[in-house]
């Protein structure tokens, strides 16, 4: 055949090779998965609240909205998260600046200590603080009253202030981590040019450094805000006994009190809509207040930043750091393990009163505790593997294939970020307990579905990050060598992002191990998770056993965290 000779259509088709398009197929699969796991539960909530027996009816929602109890819960939610976000941002910013820009000693050590609260499950922290600062029985309050001879406790943790304090301890690392990273990446000559221009250190901080880290602050503050608005564990443990409710705990209470009846679930669903509305509103508001651009502040070839000499302030500020760490990390840890070793709750913490029996009990004797550990491992590993694979696939579609309609995927993928765990749980109940001829209620599968929906966004984000580092040309080079799209994916891209996927696995496995909120609404008689078991053992008054199981959970999480560090270090070493 001569070149330039006219060809018939069918011949052209044939010469084109296979028309099978991997990209389109992956797009369809990804969309279907996200619709089933994410969109369906949300749609079911909306439907069940506003429709009754197939007709529009919004009387339920209206009555829920006008109930003073619910309004009080909403107001509490707003107050707590506003305070936690503001204070957490200030605290995180302060420590990040201290470590990033001053000559305070022991930086490496402090940097790793400051992220510990990040791994500590907040509800276990709340348990510890309850043991220390409950008005009558708390260890610190008892000591204080013995010292003063009075009857007034030092501090009552079962209050709004107490809840704010405990959430603050565990949420400030969000801002700390973001801002530390930004300060580390920032080109020091940006600050030095301001010094040369005549600005002193304080002016440079105010006019240059601060504005440049605003995007990092905003990102960290947004994480605190979302987490705190939808947080369940701390207000549940510290607030119930004193009648303090937030929207998430109120939703739980409504469903729990109705013991799973449909009416209770519908009421919970109404409040869920309210909660989501509050979250969306808060995010929009925050975006207006901290309107930010994304600056390019990455360092070029440059020196390390000039560190501000603290001189006389060095010792006091170092002391502040260590006292803060002692309070947020060491004291709660000590309390959990200390109480977990006690023969009975209430006896003085002396060596003579210590025993390993509680640990033996939760690890070997209690069927419920043992089951919960097994369930948590099963759920965390399974959901981590599934979300990691599916998340990577979706991220691949978005980042590399970029088909028309990828925007829908992106929105669907980040949706669960702004949907609180408790709301997701309500949606999952409404979807998977018979509405579609499939009743998974009381089985472990319903929890698994909820975990997958919850952690999909995590996995998509971490997979996108590692995929963006694989340059397109690598895969193109492989395709030029005759490999099909699918083959180049397997042989070139996957091996390159495998370390990222392993890290992504742990980023889901670890939070799943300490999950409480979603599982608490979904568990059945034999499907308690560790979080649920600790929570319910504690609620039933078996404090020492609850602490022992919490101790076991902490050890598992710390080991997982060390493994994660080890894995990511390996990657950097290559």
């Amino acid at each position, binding site marked *: 055949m001569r070149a330039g000779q006219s060809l018939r259509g069918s011949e052209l088709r044939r010469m084109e090779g296979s028309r099978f398009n991997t990209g389109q197929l992956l797009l369809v699969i990804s969309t279907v998965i996200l619709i089933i796991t994410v969109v369906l539960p949300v749609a079911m909530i909306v439907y069940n609240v506003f429709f009754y027996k197939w007709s529009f009816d919004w009387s339920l929602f209206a009555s829920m909205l006008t109930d003073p109890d619910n309004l009080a819960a909403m107001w509490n939610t707003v107050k707590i998260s506003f305070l936690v976000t503001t204070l957490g941002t200030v605290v995180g910013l302060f420590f990040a600046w201290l470590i990033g820009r001053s000559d305070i000693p022991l930086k490496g050590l402090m940097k790793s200590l400051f992220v510990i609260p990040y791994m500590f499950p907040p509800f276990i922290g709340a348990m510890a603080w309850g043991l220390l600062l409950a008005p009558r029985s708390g260890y610190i309050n008892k000591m204080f009253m013995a010292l003063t001879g009075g009857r007034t406790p030092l501090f009552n943790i079962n209050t709004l202030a107490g809840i704010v304090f405990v959430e603050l301890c565990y949420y400030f690392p969000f801002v700390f981590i973001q801002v530390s990273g930004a300060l580390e990446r920032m*080109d020091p*000559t*940006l600050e*030095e*040019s*301001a*010094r*040369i*221009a*005549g*600005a*002193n250190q304080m*002016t440079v901080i105010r*006019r*240059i450094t601060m*504005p*440049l880290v*605003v995007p990092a602050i905003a990102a960290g503050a947004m994480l605190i805000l979302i987490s705190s608005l939808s947080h369940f564990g701390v207000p549940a443990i510290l607030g119930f006994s004193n009648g303090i409710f937030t929207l998430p705990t109120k939703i739980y209470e409504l469903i729990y009190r109705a013991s799973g009846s449909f009416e209770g679930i519908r009421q919970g669903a109404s409040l869920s809509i309210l909660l989501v509305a509050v979250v969306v509103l808060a995010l929009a508001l925050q975006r207006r207040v901290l309107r930010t*651009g994304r*600056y*390019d*502040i990455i*360092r*070029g*070839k*440059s*020196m390390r930043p*000039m560190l501000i000499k603290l001189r006389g302030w060095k010792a006091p500020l170092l002391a502040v750091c260590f006292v803060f760490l002692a309070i947020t990390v060491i004291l709660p840890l000590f309390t959990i393990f200390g109480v977990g070793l006690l023969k009975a709750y209430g006896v003085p913490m002396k060596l003579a009163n210590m025993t390993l029996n509680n640990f033996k009990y939760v690890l070997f004797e209690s069927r419920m505790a043992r089951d919960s550990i097994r369930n948590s491992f099963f759920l965390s590993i399974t959901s981590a593997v599934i979300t990691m694979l599916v998340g990577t696939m979706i991220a691949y579609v978005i980042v590399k294939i970029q088909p028309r309609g990828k925007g829908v995927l992106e929105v669907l993928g980040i949706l669960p970020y702004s949907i609180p765990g408790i709301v997701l749980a309500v949606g999952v109940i409404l979807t998977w307990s018979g509405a579609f001829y499939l009743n998974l209620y009381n089985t472990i599968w319903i929890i698994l579905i909820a975990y997958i929906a919850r952690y999909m966004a995590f996995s998509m984000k971490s997979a996108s990050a590692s995929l963006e580092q694989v340059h397109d040309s690598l895969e193109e080079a492989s395709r030029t060598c005759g490999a099909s799209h699918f083959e180049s994916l397997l042989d070139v891209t996957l091996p390159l992002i495998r370390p990222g996927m392993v890290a992504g696995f742990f980023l889901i496995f670890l939070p799943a191990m300490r999950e409480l909120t979603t599982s608490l609404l979904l568990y059945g008689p034999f499907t308690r998770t560790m979080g649920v078991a600790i929570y319910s053992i504690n609620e039933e008054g078996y404090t020492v056993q609850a602490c022992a199981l919490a101790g076991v959970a902490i050890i598992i999480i710390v080991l997982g965290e060390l493994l994660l560090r080890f894995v990511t270090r390996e990657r950097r070493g290559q």
Partner: protein
Amino acid sequence: MDMVVLKNVTKFFVTKAFGKVTAVDDVSLNIREGECFSFLGPSGCGKTTTLRMIAGFEDLSSGEIWLGDRPVSIKTKNFYVPPEKRQLGMVFQAFAVWPHLNVYENVAFPLRIQRVSNAEISDQVKQALKHTSLSGLEEKYPSELSGGQQQRIALARAIVANAKVLLLDEPLSNLDPKLREIMRFEIKDLQKKLGLTIVYVTHDQAEAMALSDRMLVMDMGVVQQVDTPTNMYNNPANRFVFSFLGLSNFVPVALHDGLVWPAGSASSSLECEIPEDWDDDRAVLAARPNEIQLTPEGGYRTRIKNRVFLGDYVEYRMDIGDTEIRVQTHEHRDFQVGDVCGVRLGKVKWYPAEDEVSDEERERRKVI
């Protein structure tokens, strides 16, 4: 008047990995008013460290720095003026324009710090933007501008407050070659127009020669030579300076019977004059490839090993004794590989046989 004076300035860093590193070793220097003065040297020789000590970002380990008649760092008295009080302008390699401020506010920053009135700020910023050909871009943000424009903002910001001394640390090395040349002229222009004193750090010898009234070559923290570009090119003080300022051939030779014998050649000697005051019986001859002549007859006879045509000139390689040399000529007379021709080294410099800095020492420092 001397605008920048360094007296026996030394700086060492103590690092965990390498112990004590002397980055700047006993440097004394006078930079005159209205002069463009360059620091030239290989990577890691201490140029940036010296400049940062002048700016006040690094403390000295010993010595003194004066700006005009004003002391700014005197180590023995523990006297140290912070950077913001030194009234300098500075331009960095990475532009360092503030991404959250527009062009106008970037340039106005030094004046705002001095609490100058708004009307005056507007005047002075306009003036500075005109000098740096940025007029009309006031409202733009740095991310909307090219690298060259960003570097001009940095320049405008450095001159807006009428700083008399400008410190520039490789300001052009992030720009493409063409733009680099244009900016080079603009900086020179600006310096003449405003009577600025410029201290310019670079590792590009062509840039240093084009810009400087005087320059300094540094190696491993030690000043090797200070002179005008022409003098330095024509009379490099030592082998290091010679090799740093252009392409070079070094031929080790032995002297006996009044003749010059290249190492490894017992049969023929080189035709060149021995300086009258030379009293060692060994030496290293330095010659630039474009100053060596090739002749069909006479000269040091050797065989052409390699020939490359490069448009403007032809480059040959051949041995003198056991030293390979490189020759670049424009001459029409063409030699082919394998031809025997004569070499006349032409203008040569004589240096002592021992290198000032041993190669092992250089290797050791390179790690750092």
